[in-house]
């Protein structure tokens, strides 16, 4: 060690001003900190919060897994409570481990008939233990949904100063005594994931996390009203929390990720300058009870956007604004210079939807688009009514959307925000007129388009809508398209045909059949169906000579969109 120390120090001194030597010195510098004895490097790592410690793992191969050894083993516990385990045994073994530092504590409780007081008591003891070990990354999962609502509760003891990430799934109630820590109860907490948490005082929770950067709420029916996002937040996901009616994020100036999936059209506000990189908008519900213009109006500038997911309801709105609104109303969506990945959630897929997609590509310029994902509906018939009331994925009881009075509130809200932001848009009245116009037009449109598409050469339709040529769709950089739940229906094939003709650089088109054998409906066997499809597909004109079309029954796990979670069921 002494040798190394001596030589490198003297070399360092000799390193002159010349660039080459500087570089050598830099490389040497790396050697020097990495060459410190492991004991010293572990000592440095033990002074870091978990997140920073993990980051050192990416710095170089000599640091790769060192961080995981900074506390005496085991510093990461992944406990599963199966019916055959007694919770006491596990707690005893934990006590034998002692209260040494813990990086991560994960507890999964598998279904079993606990009595409610017992379960609550066990949860309390596990949580107390984890907190006493200054856990930084905490996960609590209940595997059984119904039991969790009935009889689970997490009560955080004071002392959660080190907690950096909290992930809770299927817990009836989450609470803590705010009087202990005031507004810094979770002083280090940066990431919160709550999934199917029945009762949580989100206001208090958020105001007790001064450093929160990521908020991810899924299927939390107990979260109601307005979500107040503080200014440190970088990422907000609110999925299927259908009692949330507003996401107030106008102070989150650094917001990079915003994901919203809801059956109740909540409003939101985001600072116009937020450097949004990924955006997920999935709105559905009884259309058109509420004007949808706010979702466009409340968006920030989208110049940095690289990944976008939008649903067919929103596409419909883009279409209406593009065709009947003033040019200003789509300013933000019109230019997506950095968009690399687009996902369309098609709750329905008929002629109008097809038109909406075409118009989207014509209106919203995304010259860098490389990957396109299309989630098709399960059934080809118009399913908008089904979707509107169907709860997604999780089995929360279907709460009737008590929206009888809400539309009026919404309209008032609309007008208020409209006043603030209307400069670059037309007035609210005009927009609302559009809304009516749109409805009127769409009825006609439907027929119009259906007629159009029955006449096969779709190009005619396009040339009628616009004189411009192929590049106008901006699909020249598209290399990959993937369609999920592809059944080979007429309009699906039309979309395939469109992509094949317009995407001049397309390399791969993946068509994935729905889960379960939908072909049975038609009384055909799979081989016949796929052969039939292949014949059809092979006849389609292709702009890209080496476009490969792959029809498959199973999903390709390695090709997934950034927004791989589709919260709504359709």
């Amino acid at each position, binding site marked *: *060690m002494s040798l190394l120390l001596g030589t490198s*120090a*003297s070399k360092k001194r000799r390193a002159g001003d010349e660039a080459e030597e500087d570089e050598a010195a830099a490389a040497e*510098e*790396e050697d020097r*900190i990495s060459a410190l004895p492991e004991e010293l490097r572990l*000592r440095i790592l033990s002074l870091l919060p*978990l997140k920073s410690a993990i980051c*050192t793992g990416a710095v170089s191969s000599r640091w790769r897994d060192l961080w995981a050894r900074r506390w005496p083993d085991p510093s990461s516990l992944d406990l599963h409570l199966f019916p055959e385990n007694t919770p006491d045994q596990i707690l005893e073994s934990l006590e034998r481990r002692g209260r040494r530092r813990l990086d991560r504590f994960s507890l999964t409780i598998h279904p079993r008939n606990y009595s409610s007081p017992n379960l609550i008591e066990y949860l309390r003891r596990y949580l107390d233990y984890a907190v006493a070990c200054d856990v930084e990354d905490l996960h609590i999962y209940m595997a059984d949904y119904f039991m969790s609502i009935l009889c689970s509760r997490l009560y955080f003891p004071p002392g959660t100063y080190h907690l950096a990430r909290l992930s809770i799934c299927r817990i009836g109630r989450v609470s803590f005594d705010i009087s202990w820590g005031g507004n810094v109860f979770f002083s280090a907490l940066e990431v919160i994931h709550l999934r199917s948490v029945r009762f949580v005082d989100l206001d208090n929770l958020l105001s007790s996390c001064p450093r929160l950067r990521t908020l991810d709420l899924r299927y939390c029916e107990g979260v109601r009203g307005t979500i107040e996002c503080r200014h440190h937040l970088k990422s907000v996901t609110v999925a299927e929390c259908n009692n949330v009616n507003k996401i107030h994020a106008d102070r989150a100036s650094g917001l990079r990720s915003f994901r919203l999936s809801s059956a109740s059209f909540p409003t939101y506000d985001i600072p116009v300058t937020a450097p949004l990189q990924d955006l997920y908008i999935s709105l559905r519900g009884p259309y058109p009870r509420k004007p949808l213009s706010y979702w466009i109006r409340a968006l920030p500038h989208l110049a940095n956007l690289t990944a976008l997911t939008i649903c067919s309801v929103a596409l419909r709105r883009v279409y209406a604004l593009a065709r009947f609104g003033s040019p200003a109303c789509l300013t933000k969506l019109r230019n997506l210079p950095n968009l690399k990945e687009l996902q369309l959630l098609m709750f329905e897929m008929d002629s109008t939807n097809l038109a909406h997609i075409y118009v989207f590509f014509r209106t919203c310029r995304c010259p860098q688009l490389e990957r396109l994902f299309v989630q098709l509906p399960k059934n080809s018939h118009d399913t908008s009514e089904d979707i509107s009331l169907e709860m997604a994925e999780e089995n929360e009881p279907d709460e009737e959307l008590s929206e009888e009075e809400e539309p009026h509130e919404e309209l008032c809200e609309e007008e208020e925000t409209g006043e603030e932001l209307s400069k670059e848009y037309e007035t609210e009245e005009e927009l609302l007129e559009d809304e009516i116009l749109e409805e009127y037009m769409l009825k006609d449109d439907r027929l119009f388009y259906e007629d159009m598409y029955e006449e096969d050469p779709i190009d005619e339709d396009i040339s009628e809508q616009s004189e411009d040529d192929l590049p106008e769709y901006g699909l020249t950089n598209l290399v990959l398209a993937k369609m999920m739940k592809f059944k080979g229906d007429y309009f699906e094939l039309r979309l395939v045909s469109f992509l094949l003709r317009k995407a001049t650089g397309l390399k791969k088109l993946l068509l994935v059949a729905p889960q379960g054998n939908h072909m049975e409906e038609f009384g055909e066997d799979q081989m016949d169906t796929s052969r039939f499809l292949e014949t059809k597909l092979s006849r389609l004109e292709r702009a890209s000579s080496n476009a490969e079309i792959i029809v498959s029954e199973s999903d390709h796990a390695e090709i997934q969109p950034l927004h791989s979670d589709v919260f709504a069921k359709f």
Partner: protein
Amino acid sequence: MAAPESGDGNNGAARMVTLISSDNTRFEVEAAAASLSQTLQLTILDGGGGGGDGIPLPNVDSATLSKVLEYCIKHAPAAANGGAPNATAVDRAELERFDNEFVNIDQSVLYSLIMAAHNLEIEGLQSLVAKKVADMIKGKSPMEIRRTLGFPDPTPEEQAEMNAHMLEYGWAYE
């Protein structure tokens, strides 16, 4: 770390010891200060380092040693008080100020220092320097850490490894 009570010289004047760096520079310093080093403490207790002998430190060059001794001299009185239970707030604030200033140094010196503190077993100095390095890393992205620590730009392979790690621990990079 508490210095031994016997660290103060037996005769009126403080006992001095001589330390010899790897490049043969001699440093004369009070035994009490040198005894902050657990390694030296034993030798000094045995009566070493006095007179013309000197204690050779082949692991530490003179630049680093002078820095180490600067620390030891400053911290010796407080350490002699056995962890300074009666130290005033002013004294402690002064030490803190000194410490902050002390580690405000070039990185190469910092690494030499952390090694020297480790080899000489000077607990307080080890903590201080480790803390400084940790502060340089804290809250930074891997690329920022690389730059801060003076790593060259990553090669494509290194970049790929970085990305893989970031994927694996996505939440830490959110």
